């Protein structure tokens, strides 16, 4: 592309942006709003994924040993569990330690009340490799001789898994719908420009302008509208999220929120990229049929 062609494209782009003033502003605003929602949806999905990931990796199976078992039998059981497939780790919490922990949580009241005897069983704490394996593994451990009872927060695991799955899909659907809406709006704006300049386009075709020469100003107009919206939306999302994170950390410190610069940079890049893509796709839609002469 020659220098003259570039200068022409740039001039035409800005003339057209000026001419379309309000409509352009409306598309920038729509893109911005869509990307704000997209940005918050992405942060929400990212946070829930992180949080559920944390919870998932902390799901433990508690297996209680028959109180009649001897120390040797407990040792054998530990080895048996260790050798089951999908086991990540096994640790023994003996009844003595369990009692101490229990006591600590009740301000040392219990020991005197019990009069020296210990009613608590030995307990194995087992972690699975993957959260999906927890239920099956718990069943196998429960069927071992010498294990009285198995606990793993039955149901919670399944609910957690289906919630993350569901949250991801809802997020993706909302994002897809909003992207389509933004593309349609940009394409309407560009269509107005194309329509206002259809005679020019026809004459350009007649005097031998190439399709790309004709496309560039429209493509650039679409890109500028899309990127303009993305910058606006990005500022709102990033500024808003940082404030939200500070608020949560100050007032709701038990909610684990993600705060890292790397994620923000990626988020900004995603928003800018989406804005540019929306602008480009929108303008190409409108140009397609006018180029056939």
């Amino acid at each position, binding site marked *: 592309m*020659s220098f*003259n*062609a570039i200068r*022409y494209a740039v001039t035409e782009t800005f003339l057209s942006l000026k001419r379309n003033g309000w409509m352009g502003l409306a598309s920038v605003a729509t893109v911005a709003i869509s990307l704000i929602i997209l940005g918050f949806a992405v942060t929400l999905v990212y946070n829930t994924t992180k949080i559920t990931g944390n919870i998932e990796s902390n799901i433990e199976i508690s297996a209680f040993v028959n109180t009649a078992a001897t120390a040797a039998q407990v040792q054998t059981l530990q080895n048996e569990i260790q050798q089951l497939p999908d086991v990540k780790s096994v640790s023994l919490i003996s009844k003595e330690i369990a009692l101490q922990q229990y006591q600590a949580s009740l301000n040392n009241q219990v020991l005197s009340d019990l009069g020296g005897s210990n009613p608590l069983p030995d307990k194995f704490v087992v972690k699975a490799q993957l959260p999906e394996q927890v239920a099956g593994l718990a069943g196998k451990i429960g069927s071992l001789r010498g294990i009285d009872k198995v606990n793993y927060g039955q149901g919670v695991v399944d609910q957690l898994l289906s919630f993350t799955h569901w949250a991801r899909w809802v997020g993706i659907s909302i994002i897809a719908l909003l992207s389509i809406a933004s593309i349609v709006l940009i394409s309407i704006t560009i269509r107005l420009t194309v329509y206002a300049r259809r*005679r*020019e386009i*026809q*004459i*350009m*075709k*007649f*005097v*031998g*302008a*190439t*399709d790309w*020469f*004709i496309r560039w100003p429209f493509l650039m107009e679409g890109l500028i509208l899309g990127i303009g919206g993305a910058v606006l939306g990005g500022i709102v999302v990033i500024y808003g999220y940082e404030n939200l994170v500070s608020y949560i950390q100050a007032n709701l410190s038990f909610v684990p929120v993600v705060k890292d610069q790397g994620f923000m940079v990626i988020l900004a890049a995603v928003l800018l990229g989406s804005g540019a893509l929306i602008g480009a796709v929108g303008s190409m839609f409108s140009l397609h049929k006018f180029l056939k*002469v």
Partner: protein
Amino acid sequence: MFIQLTNVSKTYPNGVRALIDTTLRIDKGEFVFLVGPSGAGKSTIVKLLFREEQASRGQVMVNGKNLSRLRDGRVPYFRRNIGMIFQDFKLLVNKTVYENVAFALQVVGASSKEIKQKVPAVLALVGLDKKADFLPTQLSGGEQQRVCIARAVVNNPPLVLADEPTGNLDPETSWDIMKLLLDINKRGTTIVMGTHAKDIVDSLRKRVIAMERGRIVRDEEKGVYGNEF
């Protein structure tokens, strides 16, 4: 040979057979009138030569190029060698006379130096050098057609296609336009002009190709408009 149609037929998607097995040859530097009633196939020939339409059958050669083998991407470059003149002028109403002509150079990537040099020259050629800053709406029909001609020839194309260039003009103005086209033809440019203007065709005595229902019915040097239609 400059233009050669060999056994060309054109059937439009709606089933209209606009051109039937037509063979035609035009040499470099000729001035040719295409005459005949509306729908006879004049416009179809012009569209085929401009590669706005492609032949359904047969071969169209223009300036050494076989148009059925011309890739879409090359069409713009092919068109830079053809000047188009329209019955309705097709000027941009929000641009001045100068800008309308300069536009044709801009969109093919000409430098501003080239534009500053060529536009005044071509406006002088068509006699509009004093009205360069006028808008098309401030001009008469004949003057608007001169702008259209200036735009068509500013690139100095070897071929000019004119589709009823005097169709919207009064007889006196039509003659001025014809004189201008003859001048351009004298400089070596081939001109193919579709027209209904009987008195112009009859008095200029140029080559006349008469068409009817998609076929050439008469082709004569120093011809007349004829009485068959």
